[in-house]
């Protein structure tokens, strides 16, 4: 590996890490909330809402992510312009976060739904029997147990989202891979494989850390359960 390349490119790549983390964290936080709401509708009894959400989820789960990013990037400003809201000047990263949040919400919803259906219904009855109200029951019984069942699937989703931040540069939102591509093209392709290799290593380390975090969280959740 040419050392001058390491000295000139690595600091720049590392400077992009916060942006990449933002493009991962913001959609994750939004999707956890929105995905939970969607999930409540999907396991609920309200027919009209149920079908509306189902169509929404099918669309986002059934079309390529990059198509959704394009549609949000080009379409959302036009849609809002009809009601005289001008978001044309927003940075590309904002569109990426919106598109990824919507997409991820649908996947989170389905994972949580699976988790919820996996929770023993007796647990919910038990909660009611000791006098928990609806909200108390949700936060103390349903949510923790649903999360515990879902956590491994959520981990897979989050790792995917972290890796998928690498398509943000296609609409001009700069992150690790976008920066790598820019440097490569500015040097007419010199050192292409080295630079991409560096980017890959950075992604790998970030994913490994995420994996560790989730593993720790899932052990924490199982602390009251039986250890096999």
């Amino acid at each position, binding site marked *: 590996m040419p050392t001058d390349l390491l000295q000139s490119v690595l600091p720049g790549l590392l400077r992009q890490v916060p942006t990449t983390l933002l493009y991962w964290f913001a959609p994750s936080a939004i999707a956890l909330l929105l995905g939970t709401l969607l999930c409540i509708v999907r396991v609920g009894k309200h027919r009209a809402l149920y079908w509306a959400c189902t169509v929404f989820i099918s669309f986002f789960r059934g079309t390529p992510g990059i198509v959704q990013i394009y549609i949000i990037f*080009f379409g959302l400003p*036009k849609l809002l312009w*009809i009601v005289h809201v001008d978001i044309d000047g927003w940075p590309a990263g904002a569109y990426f976060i919106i598109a990824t949040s919507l997409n991820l919400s649908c996947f989170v919803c389905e994972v949580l739904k699976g988790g919820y259906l996996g929770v023993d219904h007796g647990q919910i009855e038990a909660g009611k029997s000791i006098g928990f109200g609806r909200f108390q029951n949700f936060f103390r019984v349903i949510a923790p147990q649903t999360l515990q069942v879902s956590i491994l699937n959520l981990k897979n989703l989050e790792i995917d989202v972290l890796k998928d931040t690498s398509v943000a*540069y296609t*609409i001009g939102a700069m992150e690790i891979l976008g920066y790598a591509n*820019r440097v490569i*093209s500015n040097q*007419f392709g010199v050192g*292409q494989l080295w630079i991409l290799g560096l980017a890959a290593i950075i992604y790998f380390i970030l994913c490994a850390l995420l994996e560790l975090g989730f593993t720790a969280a899932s052990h924490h959740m199982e602390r009251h359960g039986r250890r096999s």
Partner: protein
Amino acid sequence: MKKRIVAAIASVLVIGSLSACGSGSAQGNTNSGGVKTIKIALESQDPPYSYADNNGKPAGFDLAVLKELDKKLPQYSFEYSVQDYETALVGVKQGKYDALIGAFFKTKARAEQYLLSTPYNYYFMNLIVPEGSPINSLKDMNGKTLDPIVPTDGRYLAIHDWLKRNPKVKITVPEVSNQSTFQDMFNSVHDGTYDAVYLSKAQYEGVASTLGYKMKVTGIVDGAGTVVLYNKEQKDLQGAIDKQIDSLISDGTLPKLTQKWFKQDNFALAKKLDVFQS
């Protein structure tokens, strides 16, 4: 390459779904002075013509041309953003950007989808061949093979135009879906896989020092004008800019700019090669 196909699908979807909204995107942000803001996209990966520097700021010869034009057009104020190739093309087509620049050649397909300016610069092609090779022109390439070119590349259109004009010369132009780096192109000619790289001298010089061997650059074999692409609605802008391009060429501003960037007067060269258009 998968990304290209997906981008194409995306463009179709986006444009399809948005043409329904009408072209209400001409959000002419006219501020108090009556100056209209024009959103211009610059292609992000085409140095030295148009690219993002390592801080993400637009840079290159094409930007320098735009800045000269902006000075001459008090009724407009240009706003620049650097954008990925496909995204920029879709963005201009459906009106997110008003214009796009980045060493684009004039082609039939582009003329159908965009408004095009008159050429603001000329792009000259050379052949890069092994040292001591007898090849000096495209005619010498008869029966030989060029290094592969992506069909969406301007060079692909340029070589096929030339072959149409010179039907006696048969050159094989392999197609690839993903352009290799300049280094790899020169390597594959150096080791004899292909006979020549069809590229500009400036692009060879950009990597010459990293190759570890010398190549021969022939004289100029072909040239073509590069144009601004406008959204179809931008007739007024097209007219205004075209007028200024002509005057910047005749008053020597643009020829001076090409001297500074490419060490040669591209307009005089274009006239000599008989590819000049105004």
